[in-house]
């Protein structure tokens, strides 16, 4: 292995370039800039490149030599590349037709234009993506209706599969999280209520908070993170590999085959998960109350039954199917929007979770206001 280097000189008015060492991709990095400078100086002059002392040569080195030799169009027969071994010579000949530069990066405008473009695209994107999302929601609903009236088109196997994936497999995590949240609410509540000597109201606190809000919200948030993102990734990678197109040309409607079963499965399973979350939240709260304030489980349950009526439970659980629908539709919609690259898949998956969470919280706020007006 020898360092690549070169020496320049002249014989009369003919410039000379003597090449030394290994001219391979591994070794030529350091001399590229100097060689370019030299090539600029040779313009309009004759040049003899001498390869006698050269050791190794690969296509990168050959390209650099030919590039230098042809940096000027009007060299005459006085110019030459001399001293090449036969193998090196054919390598030099081989790269000759391929010296044209090519575009490397995707075309880009000036930063200012790009900024304007991105601002505009962002603004109009909000409008159009909202429109498209609404369009997609409509499409899903219509397809769901069509499927409903025709039991032969119910894809029970697919629905069951997704119920297992999104519901059953989420039970441990949803249960654990809501148990802990219930306990935390009880702890924090106990601290404040103690100051008023009203510890026993911790039962109402836990009951109302968990049944109305935390249970369903926690289940929805975990589902958006677990299943919404999974829907986007599944459908998105099918999109990239042209599987969605394959479905279409087989006469199958991707909305019916892929999206409706996922949506139905989630709409069924999220209320179940919410129920589980509510139950475990209350258990967690009860145990925490027992541990910190000596409120016995029997007393806790009795007060829960007495004070926290079924209304609170319904006020929570009624929201679950709506949340589920939003999560499923957003997940599938973002999956269908994936274009071409793995990067796009990643962006869409992120977007799917963020949008689903955002809409779930907004929807929850609407429900809260709605119930407030109704005194529910």
């Amino acid at each position, binding site marked *: 292995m020898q360092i690549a280097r070169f020496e320049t000189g002249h014989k009369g008015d003919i410039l000379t370039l003597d090449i030394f060492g290994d001219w391979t*991709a591994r070794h030529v990095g350091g001399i590229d800039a100097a060689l370019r400078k030299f090539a600029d100086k040779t313009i309009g002059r004759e040049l003899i490149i001498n390869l006698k002392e050269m050791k190794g040569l690969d296509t990168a080195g050959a390209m650099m030599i030919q*590039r230098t030799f042809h940096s000027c169009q009007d060299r005459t027969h006085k110019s030459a590349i001399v*001293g090449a*071994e*036969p193998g090196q*010579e054919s390598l030099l000949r081989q790269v000759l037709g*391929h010296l044209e*530069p*090519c575009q*490397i990066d995707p075309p880009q405008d000036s930063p200012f234009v790009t900024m304007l473009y991105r601002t505009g695209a962002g603004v109009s994107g909000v409008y159009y993506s909202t429109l498209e999302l609404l369009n997609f929601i409509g499409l899903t609903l219509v397809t769901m209706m069509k499927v409903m009236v025709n039991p032969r088109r119910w894809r029970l196997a697919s629905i069951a599969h997704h119920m297992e994936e999104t519901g059953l497999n989420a039970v441990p995590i949803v249960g654990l999280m809501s148990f802990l949240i219930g306990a935390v609410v009880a702890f924090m509540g106990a601290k404040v209520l103690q100051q008023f000597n009203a510890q026993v109201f911790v039962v109402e606190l836990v009951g109302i908070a968990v049944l109305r809000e935390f249970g369903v919200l926690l289940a929805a948030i975990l589902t958006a993170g677990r299943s919404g993102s999974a829907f986007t990734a599944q459908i998105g990678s099918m999109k990239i590999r042209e599987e969605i197109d394959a479905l279409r040309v087989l006469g199958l409607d991707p909305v019916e085959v892929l999206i409706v079963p996922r949506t139905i499965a989630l709409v069924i399973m999220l209320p179940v998960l919410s129920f589980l979350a509510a139950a475990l939240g209350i258990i967690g709260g009860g145990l925490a109350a027992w541990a910190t304030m000596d409120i016995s489980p029997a007393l806790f349950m009795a007060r829960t039954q007495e004070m926290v009526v079924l209304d609170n439970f319904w006020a929570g659980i009624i929201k679950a199917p709506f949340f589920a629908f939003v999560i499923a539709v957003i997940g599938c919609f973002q999956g269908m929007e994936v274009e071409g690259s793995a990067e796009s898949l990643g962006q869409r998956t992120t977007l799917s979770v963020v949008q689903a969470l955002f809409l779930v919280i907004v929807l929850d706020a609407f429900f809260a206001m709605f119930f407030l007006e109704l005194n529910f």
Partner: protein
Amino acid sequence: MTKETAIIQGQNASSDQVSDQLSRAEHDHIIEVRGLRNQFGNFIVHDELDLNVRRGEIIGVVGGSGTGKSVLMRSIIGLKRPSKGIVKIFGHDFYGASSKEKIGIEQRWGVLFQGGALFSSMTVAQNVMAPLRAHLHLPDELARDIAALKISMAGLPPESGDKFPSELSGGMKKRAGLARALALDPEMVFLDEPTAGLDPIGAAQFDDLIVNLRNTMGLTVFMVTHDLDSLHAACDRIAVLSDKKVIVNGPIDEVRKLDHEWIQRYFSGPRGRAAVVAKDPNHVEDFKEKRSVIA
């Protein structure tokens, strides 16, 4: 004076030296596979498979679909650990090598996967520059020039450099994958069905390119292919994969004469005969006899 003739022959290497190198190369195995077994669960793909590849040769691997050509390639390049047997490449046991050795080995080969396996979030040229950026500290300008060279040599027009893989046709993806495989000027390339999806003109150019690179740089080529023209035009030796083994590994004329059912059906089908005629019209008679013997 035209550019093409600008090279003036200089000092020649003595011809003795060249032939000496060749005879040494004869016995210099760049890949040695011994007693290889590959399985997925209970499904055995290879068993007791042996294969040698010599330095500087173009070996064509053929076999029916699903006989494990791609799996063989993957286990040689370190992507599928065999359940038994030894795989040696450049004299190293890849699966026993330290991670530093592995990086050294990996820079010495280039791989073209069956589906191209281009990075989808990069343009074609960025794909080709990826190995350059990863392993060599080159000035950006030079890396760009090298990328342009490889793209052009692989037969892509310069304007495809800034296209993303999702904007390319299947054949163009293959070419871009080849350009990436050749980016570091490797000693050895692995090509999985390189000419599948190329038009016949492109496929012939591809064969020329491979043979040229072998002749000029001593490139060793491991090529899985079903392209009978490629086998005739480019390959020095053919390894036939059947019954979980390499049943024969030799020059095409020898392989063709072998009395094995699959080999005979492979080479003496209408496509096989057409490829022979294309290579050398004199072979026609020979083949007719052969067929009548089998029939």
